[in-house]
């Protein structure tokens, strides 16, 4: 029987999924999670979110088995519901992720500003980050899956080891390690912390776009669960370690550290300084490399996936035609790549000028939760609509798990945005604005594009 020359393994898929999800913004979000619960109990919220994300991954596993295409979420929603719903929601989801790259660039820049005092301004690093990721994509330079696996292993080993060292040094600081409901409003705080923890796993489902590169569909399902487990170990340990080693007000940027600097956008830098003590310089070099690798893999994967999505939409006449231009030398969708880099750069500029980068954590968490609800509903709808369609992977304990997943994530969405904090409401406004723009685009622009 004929075979494909190149196929991805579950290990590569798990490394890719974890790599997509791992970004510097996630460390900031991990601190936000810790800040919502009493004592040192944020790790419980991180683990709880992982369990629910595994439920969502089962839904994505069934859908990507039915439709193993890089167009992913758009196909699932279109097949379950209709095109008018699929286009704005999937495009809004993609653009929210792109806009969040601006926030990642801001964090990336602030890390290097702190690491190299008197060096270039934040703008230099922001532009450098997008220039490198944009150039890699423009020229079609691929990071081989072996290299990606190695980078992911190095990043995760570094974080796990540093977290364990920090817990050994400072782990006795808290009495409350096990009761996230203690104190006033503890239950509400814990629920919001679980919801926000979903951000930490945001992107694990992007590996469904790789289903065309696998031979057996269970590779994607196993890979997604693998990436969730990797991220869960790293972020739960890091959450407990950060809070143990660094005063909470310093981590969140409410107070300056003894060096007079605010570390709200780069909590891992002050964490590394404290944990490494006399070996601070060595730790900071590690932190710099970690930040660089994490942001670059995140930018690179983000631009790679979204540019192809935008290209495909343009080919389908649902986005302007120029976005389907292919570079005649490098065979890449260069117009889509440049457009996305510009959108992300504008987002970074706005954030750097106006502040409030943490709102994007909520916007992306909201977009992800919305997508998990849609995935669960799509599974339910398609079980009725396409009974005979081949399903290489089926959601275990159906329909209970799918119904529970849809209800749970819907409640989580409401709960997250019920919070009246300014960063939460700004995050909600960002998400709703992007959805509104895409709905208007679907109603008014797409009919014109289709007529051309």
């Amino acid at each position, binding site marked *: 029987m004929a075979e*494909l*020359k190149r196929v991805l393994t579950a290990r590569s898929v798990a490394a890719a999924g974890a790599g997509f999800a791992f970004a510097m913004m996630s460390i900031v979000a991990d601190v936000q999670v810790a800040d919502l619960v009493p004592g040192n109990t944020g790790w419980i919220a991180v683990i709880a979110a992982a369990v629910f994300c595994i439920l969502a991954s089962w839904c994505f596993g069934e859908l990507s088995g039915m439709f193993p295409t890089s167009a992913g979420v758009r196909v699932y929603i*279109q097949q379950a519901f209709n095109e008018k719903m699929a286009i704005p929601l999937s495009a809004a989801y993609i653009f929210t992720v792109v806009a969040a790259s601006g926030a990642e660039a801001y964090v990336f820049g602030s890390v290097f500003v702190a690491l190299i005092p008197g060096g270039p301004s934040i703008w230099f690093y922001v532009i450098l980050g997008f220039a490198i990721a944009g150039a890699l994509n423009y020229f079609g330079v691929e990071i081989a899956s072996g290299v990606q696996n190695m980078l992911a292993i190095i990043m995760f080993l570094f974080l796990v080891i540093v977290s364990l060292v920090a817990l050994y040094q400072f782990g006795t600081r808290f009495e409350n390690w096990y009761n996230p409901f203690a104190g006033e409003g503890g239950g509400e705080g814990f629920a919001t912390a679980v919801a926000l923890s979903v951000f930490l796993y945001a992107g694990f489902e992007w590996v469904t776009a790789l289903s*065309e590169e696998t031979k057996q569909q269970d590779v994607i399902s196993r890979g997604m669960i693998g990436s969730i487990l990797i991220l869960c170990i790293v972020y739960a340990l890091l959450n407990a370690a950060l809070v143990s080693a660094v005063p909470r007000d310093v981590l969140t940027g409410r107070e300056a550290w003894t060096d007079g600097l605010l570390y709200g956008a780069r909590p891992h830098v002050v964490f590394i300084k404290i944990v490494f003590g006399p070996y601070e310089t060595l730790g900071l070099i590690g932190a710099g490399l970690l930040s660089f690798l994490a942001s670059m893999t995140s930018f690179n994967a983000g631009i790679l996936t979204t540019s192809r999505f935008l290209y495909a939409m343009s*080919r389908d006449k649902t986005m302007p035609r120029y976005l389907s231009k*292919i570079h005649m030398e490098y065979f890449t969708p260069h117009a889509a790549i440049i457009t996305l880099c510009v959108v992300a750069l504008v987002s970074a500029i706005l954030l750097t000028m106006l502040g409030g980068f943490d709102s994007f954590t909520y916007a992306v968490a909201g977009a992800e939760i919305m997508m998990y609800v849609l995935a669960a509903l799509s599974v339910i709808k398609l079980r009725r609509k396409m009974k005979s369609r081949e399903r290489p992977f089926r959601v275990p304990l159906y329909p209970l798990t799918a119904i529970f997943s849809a209800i749970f994530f819907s409640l989580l969405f409401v709960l997250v945005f019920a919070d009246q904090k300014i960063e939460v409401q700004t995050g909600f406004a960002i998400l709703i604005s992007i959805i509104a723009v895409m709905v208007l685009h679907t109603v008014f622009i797409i009919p014109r594009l289709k007529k051309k």
Partner: protein
Amino acid sequence: METHMSDINECLKAANDFKDKMNDNLKVRKLLKRWNPLIHFDTRDSDIKLSFGMSGGMAVSVESGHVGNAELTVTFPTAKDLVDMFYGKLDPTPMYLSGDILVKGHQADVIKLDAITMIIWPEK
């Protein structure tokens, strides 16, 4: 799933027509000069299988059956869709985006495949 000889012949004829169109198009040849894939086509409603070989910007072979290890496999819903795509009567992009056409292979190669149809039939 019954496949008649006439269906296979029609598919081969359409694939050869597509091959000629590709080879006559200078833009395609320039674009694909460093792409040398073997592509397998099949359909869900028949046993029709085709192998489409490319080298140095030219389509070099069209054979019945799946020969060798491919870079890409493309599955169409019906043999008619496959024939229509080769003749340029069917735009494969919407069918790909709706999950009706399934592709296995590297994502970068999928764009290349799509670009061929975009260049040969720019208005589609």
